[in-house]
């Protein structure tokens, strides 16, 4: 490959990826591209492989076949703890905050992989997005409410100054008002902080409204893809994922 002076339009490229858990093939040849500055959403039924795809991008589990490149570098075989230093952060399924640590310590954990010089500035930004985190900074994270824990998980991910943010079902189990707030912050992070977002959601209506593009994952394969509002119009999507309103 020749040297490219500008970053290529494609930020993350997943091509032909297969992932296994033992003998179970969870991803059966996935091709997904995420461009700089986009919000891309991934929707699909339970067990379709959405979480597996995000985790495979982070190298745990690693893809058995296929390639994942980020900003032109092949990261398929890179150890998980190095991938985050390349600029990818994840707020994983189930939030996985450290319950025994304080909110502030969780935030510090997020900044683990980057220069301490940025800490104050980044912390100020995260608490601007989620003021509640500042109020609760000395509280044990395990005692936060579900919505607050989700904000902490996103805030913690932001502390590593990612260029690509992977979000796995940030709206799960939250009240509609909090969901709205979280989605607003995702849009804000994308527009103001220029962070590219890959968003996994059950809440297909909100996700497709927000996203530039979307992919539909069925049984470990990409079944459909296209611009968010276009997917929203498709009758098969309406039937399968938007049944019963929003």
């Amino acid at each position: 490959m020749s040297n490219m002076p500008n970053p290529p339009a494609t930020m993350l490229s997943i091509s032909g990826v297969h992932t296994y858990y033992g003998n179970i093939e969870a991803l059966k040849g996935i091709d997904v591209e995420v461009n700089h500055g986009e919000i891309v959403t991934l929707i699909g039924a339970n067990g379709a492989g959405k979480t597996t795809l995000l985790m495979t991008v982070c190298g745990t589990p690693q893809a058995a076949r296929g390639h994942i490149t980020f900003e032109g570098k092949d990261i398929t075989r890179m150890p998980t703890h190095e991938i985050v230093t390349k600029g990818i952060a994840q707020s994983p399924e189930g939030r996985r905050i450290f319950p025994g640590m304080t909110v502030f310590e969780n935030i510090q954990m997020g900044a683990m992989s980057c220069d301490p010089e940025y800490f104050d500035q980044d912390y100020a930004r995260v608490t601007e997005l989620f003021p509640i985190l500042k109020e609760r900074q000395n509280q044990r994270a395990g005692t936060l409410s579900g919505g607050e824990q989700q904000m902490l998980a996103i805030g913690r991910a932001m502390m590593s100054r990612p260029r690509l943010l992977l979000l796995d079902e940030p709206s799960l189990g939250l009240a509609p008002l909090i969901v709205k707030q979280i989605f607003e912050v995702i849009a804000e992070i994308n527009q103001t902080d220029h962070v590219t977002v890959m968003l996994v959601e059950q809440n297909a209506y909100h996700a497709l409204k927000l996203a530039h593009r979307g992919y539909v994952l069925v049984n470990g394969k990409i079944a459909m893809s296209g611009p968010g509002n276009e997917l929203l119009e498709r009758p098969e999507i309406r039937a399968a994922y938007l049944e019963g309103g929003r």
Partner: protein
Amino acid sequence: MEYFIQQLINGVTLGSIYGLIAIGYTMVYGIIGMINFAHGDVFMIGAFISLIMFLVLGLIGITWIPFAILLVLIVTMILTSVYGWTVERLAYRPLRKSFRLAPLISAIGMSIFLQNYVQLLQGARVKPIQPIVEGGITLIQSDTFVVTISYLQIIIVLATFLLMSIFAYIISSTSLGRSQRACEQDQLMASLLGINVDRTISLTFVMGAALAAVASVLFVLYYGVIDFYIGFHAGIKAFTAAVLGGIGSLPGAMLGGLLIGLIETFWSAYFSIEYKDVAAFSILVLVLIFRPTGLLGKPEIEKV
């Protein structure tokens, strides 16, 4: 009363040594949920290294005692840490993704190996050393009994206190300590945040071994005799201390160490020396019946 105070001093001294070793058990358990049965033998290796170092320093004529002790401490900590690191690397890391019992069996094997290795290299006979730090302070003098605290006992208690403070600071307030606690709670998440989990686990073994090394130097100074079997004895006491205090808890390990030291000393002083181990283990059983997680152990990790 004087007799009691004297035993208290002796018990705290012994308990400090147990506490230092117990931390190695508790930290490793905290981070990978495994009892490192070879930890007592790493302590024993430390004792041999320090004994040899003292003899060598004596031979080459370094006789200024504070300097000699400091030098022995540093060298023993470094070499013993290398052993601790190697044990993890060879015996546990390859089994990390295996079933739960595998590393435990490997640990017992490692323990037997280390004992035999030292026995082969150093012989099975008891190794004595001249007293190095002598003298003490008389605290109470009555007609019937003299209460003294030796300089060595002061050194042991102070060194333990100092190390524990440094250690508590590392765990609570440095990024290494935070990484260790993160790995304890959720290794996968820790790695997603850029923490090298394998390295953090290695460092935990190194820290545990370094503390055991300090304990071993103090042990050599205090008792003056060692053999290849001391790791088993001290190890099982320290392990008991860790469980008594609540395995996984650092203050618990220290508290447990002190309690075991005190129970043993008082039992020997007032009842019979033969049954001091029975006394220590009986207390353990009693505590575990009423508080299964140990004195300072966390009841249960909350569900999120």
